[in-house]
């Protein structure tokens, strides 16, 4: 029993301090251990080492003081005081590093933003140039189209004047004399072929146009008969045109008989002028304006 007490005393007084001595000072102050852990993490963080060396050094110094006092078995309050300072300084080092990194990042991002803006301006300039070029091309195309239209209009006018059409309030009107028909007949004679071919060629070329064929007579004979004769003559001309390949819906016919004389019926020369067929040519929309008189 006594032997055991001696043994226990021996272990307590000699062995334990020896063991502790071999393993270095016992690091079992929790605050110091926490500060050491935080510091060693910070120390192995290359960002903190690079960006906050001063704050890290201050943390290290405080930590060493804490460890020193601990080793010398100094006041516990003082050990913890420096451990606290070391821990806070470690956090300060971390924040300082992050602040410096962020400031570098701001600088980089600002120059990047400038570059992007320059790119944006370039892109905008290119886009503007493309728009301008496109507008120019469109203008050119419009001009060419206008020129084509003008040429076509000129051709139309030329063709019409070749066919001796005249300009009236209702548009271009081609007047054919009664020599195309035999007396009192609605049958076209051989002399009509030339006129039919001309009108047909014109309609084929200007395929947006339609025509209205209007028949007229002099005042000799009954009005009803004359109206019928003028209608049949107009229809005969329409048939002749259809035979050359013109669509029937492009041609309308009307027999006006004695109506709308262009000259007196009192003499043969006037009556000759009144016996006629008029071909009224539509505008480019295919619309023929009707007589209003």
């Amino acid at each position: 029993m006594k032997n055991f007490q001696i043994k226990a005393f021996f272990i307590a007084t000699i062995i334990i301090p020896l063991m502790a001595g071999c393993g270095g000072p016992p690091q079992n102050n929790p605050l110091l251990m926490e500060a050491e852990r935080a510091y060693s993490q910070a120390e192995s963080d290359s960002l903190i080492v690079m960006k906050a060396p001063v704050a890290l050094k201050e943390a290290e110094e405080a930590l060493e003081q804490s460890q020193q006092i601990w080793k010398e078995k100094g006041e516990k309050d003082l050990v913890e005081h420096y451990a606290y300072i070391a821990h806070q300084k470690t956090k300060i080092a971390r924040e300082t590093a992050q602040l410096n990194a962020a400031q570098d990042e701001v600088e980089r991002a600002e120059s990047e933003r400038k570059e992007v803006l320059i790119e944006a301006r370039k892109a905008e300039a290119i886009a503007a140039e493309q728009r301008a070029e496109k507008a120019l091309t469109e203008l050119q195309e419009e001009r060419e189209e206008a020129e084509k239209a003008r040429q076509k209009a000129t051709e139309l006018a030329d063709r019409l004047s070749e066919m001796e059409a005249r300009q009236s309030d209702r548009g271009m009107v081609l007047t054919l004399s009664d020599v195309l028909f035999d007396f009192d007949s609605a049958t076209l004679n051989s002399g009509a072929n030339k006129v039919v071919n001309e009108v047909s060629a014109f309609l084929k070329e200007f395929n947006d146009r339609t025509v209205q064929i209007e028949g007229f007579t002099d005042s000799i004979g009954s009005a009803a008969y004359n109206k019928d004769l003028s209608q049949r003559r107009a229809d005969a001309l329409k048939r002749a045109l259809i035979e050359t390949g013109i669509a029937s819906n492009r041609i309308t016919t009307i027999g006006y008989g004695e109506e709308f004389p262009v000259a007196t019926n009192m003499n043969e020369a006037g009556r000759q002028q009144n016996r006629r067929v008029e071909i009224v040519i539509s505008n480019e929309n295919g619309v023929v304006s009707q007589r209003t008189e």
Partner: protein
Amino acid sequence: MRQLLLLTSFLFITTACASTKPPNDKLTQVESTIQQAEQVGAENYAPLEIREARKKLAEARELSAKENYEKAKRTADRAMVDAELAQMKSLSEKAQKAVRQLRESIRVLQEEIQNNLDKTENRS
């Protein structure tokens, strides 16, 4: 022996001096660091740290008033690191926020440019 006595008394006097003087300069420094931290938005960015700094400063003043100068000085030192941390944390958070905003603005800008380019390509 006489030398040892002299050294001991000298040490005693210097330690005594350190503890008999109120740490007024230190307290003022802590106060001004806390104000600096507040100015950079510590109330929003580091509320815990700034509160801790204020609490310790008040404690340090109390200890100083009770003429416990040594403890007052230590508490003031701890208040100081709290205030420094609050200040640094606020600055760091703000800078990181600025970075995020800048990156976002760049992203939006790039998106806009891409949209404009797409539009232009579609037009032509």
